[in-house]
């Protein structure tokens, strides 16, 4: 599948934004973090910024962005529509929680209830994002039970990295959050590794003979393509990264997305002044690059069934 940069940015940014929103809301509601005005303003501001920028960037690849509002109508059948609806709904309780935190410096009572609701809505939104991909039977690498959990865990993981850096920057590090972040990094890495392992395991694959129904005569090979130049279907669905490069890029994604942030987060426990802030911010930067690479591979290594009609031997 062709990796569209707007979609890569959207899924990474909004995933991290929803993750940050969830942790801020939960830590505030649980009384683990004092709802201080400036922390709230920067934290919720960052979360809303990432979510909104992500949502906006997802409209860049539309042919008619001015009609995007129509996408809220088909929640009965479409995961993409459900994602849009949930994204908008989430703004309401999240906005209330932010108002409580910033305007009244409180995260208890009804404000806390709004925060819990915001966390639940954010989680559902990311779940819908994952299901958009996981529900596509035409792309075996996406139609995989690990895809949606991965979107959820990677969102929570990058959100925790952001929250951890934020609390360090405000001089209020929380050991529990650091451990949570480390735990999520380990779970994220384990899930991603398991996903890559199931991907390379040969399940049922289809051939050009299956796709055309001509397999009864023997091996099916393309003789003449329908047109001289690649068409939309080939440009959109035919993108496939070379296996050799994919292996190298996977290693780089593991290093940047999981191992480097893990080391940085652990380093932040050190009492050396200033190291906590620097290390947790570095963890965010590494993870950002790693997630972009991971998401790029998620697209580039996905092979659509339609490629069988255009010369792919198996899919």
């Amino acid at each position, binding site marked *: 599948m062709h990796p569209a940069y707007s979609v890569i940015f959207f899924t990474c940014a909004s995933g991290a934004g929803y993750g940050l929103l969830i942790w801020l809301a939960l830590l505030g509601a649980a009384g683990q973090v004092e709802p201080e005005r400036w922390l709230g303003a920067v934290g919720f501001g960052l979360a809303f910024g990432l979510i909104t920028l992500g949502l906006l960037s997802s409209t860049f690849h539309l*042919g008619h962005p001015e009609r995007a509002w129509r996408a809220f109508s088909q929640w009965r059948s479409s995961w993409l529509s459900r994602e849009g609806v949930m994204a908008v709904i989430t703004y309401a309780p999240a906005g209330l929680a932010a108002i409580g935190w910033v305007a009244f410096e409180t995260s208890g009572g009804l404000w806390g209830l709004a925060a819990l609701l915001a966390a639940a809505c954010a989680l559902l939104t990311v779940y819908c994002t994952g299901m958009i991909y996981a529900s596509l039977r035409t792309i075996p690498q996406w139609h995989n039970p690990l895809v949606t959990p991965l979107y959820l865990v990677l969102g929570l993981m990058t959100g925790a990295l952001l929250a951890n850096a934020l609390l360090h920057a405000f001089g209020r590090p929380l050991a529990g959050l650091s451990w949570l972040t480390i735990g999520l990094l380990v779970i994220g890495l384990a899930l991603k590794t398991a996903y890559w392992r199931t991907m390379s395991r040969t399940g049922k694959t289809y051939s050009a*003979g299956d796709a055309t129904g001509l397999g009864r005569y*023997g*091996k099916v090979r*393309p003789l003449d393509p*329908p047109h001289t130049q690649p068409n939309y279907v080939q440009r959109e669905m035919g993108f496939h990264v070379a296996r050799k490069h994919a292996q190298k890029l996977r290693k780089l994604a593991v290093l940047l997305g999981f191992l480097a942030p893990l080391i940085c987060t652990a380093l932040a426990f050190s009492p050396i002044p200033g190291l906590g802030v620097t290390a947790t911010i570095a963890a965010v930067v590494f993870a950002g690059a790693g997630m972009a690479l991971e998401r790029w591979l998620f697209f580039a290594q996905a092979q659509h069934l339609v490629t069988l009609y255009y010369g792919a031997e198996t899919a």
Partner: protein
Amino acid sequence: MTSLPQGTGKKLGLVIDLDTCVGCQACATSCKEWNTGGYSAPLTDQDPYGPDPHGAWLNRIHAYEAGEGAAGRTVHFPRSCLHCEEPDCVTVCPTGASYKRAEDGIVLVNPETCIGCKLCSWACPYGAREYDEADGVMKKCTLCVDRIYNQNLSAEDRVPACVRACPTGARHFGDIGDPASGVSKLVAERGGYGLLPEFGYKPVNRYLPPRPKSPGQALSSAGQAAEAAPLAPSPTADLFFRWADRVLSR
């Protein structure tokens, strides 16, 4: 509404005879010509006279080789929307622009409400939906919905443009849901099949497989060599042709 109708009155579709299709592209060009002025017009091309001409086509004709040696065959393979009974391309649509008609089962895109998110093209295993770069919306086979019911056309023209254009009669149009229809009888008689049935999209269009080769044609590799031998030039004839070549080349 992108939720699917509870069954459709008719199941209009195409039956394509892979035995008689000669890959002449008449159906593809006729389709392009009709539909660039029809329901989902325009059907644009990019860089049409440059080095990288490409654009939206609703019908594409592949050619495949299947099998080896004398038993192998060349098959021309037209591919367009199969108007599935359970099309994922419709249910994934977030706007309701994609829909399946309850009355005849035709799958359409409303070009006024499509946002061009391309998700439907990801959901279709058959590559039937193409994005029109200039128009910013998805294009697909309409089964010539603007021809088949068109009272302004003479009766013989009320079929999809591809069917009307086919010079070998390889394309047939009708109600595949009605067992008494001509197309259904053809499918029953010739063992017509749908594509990738195991995925459960229940495509309506059917392909008629190439007929078995007649005994004289179906030669084993050895048989072919034996039969071909008398046709090979004899050494004498070979000497003659070489002499003639030399003479004529002077």
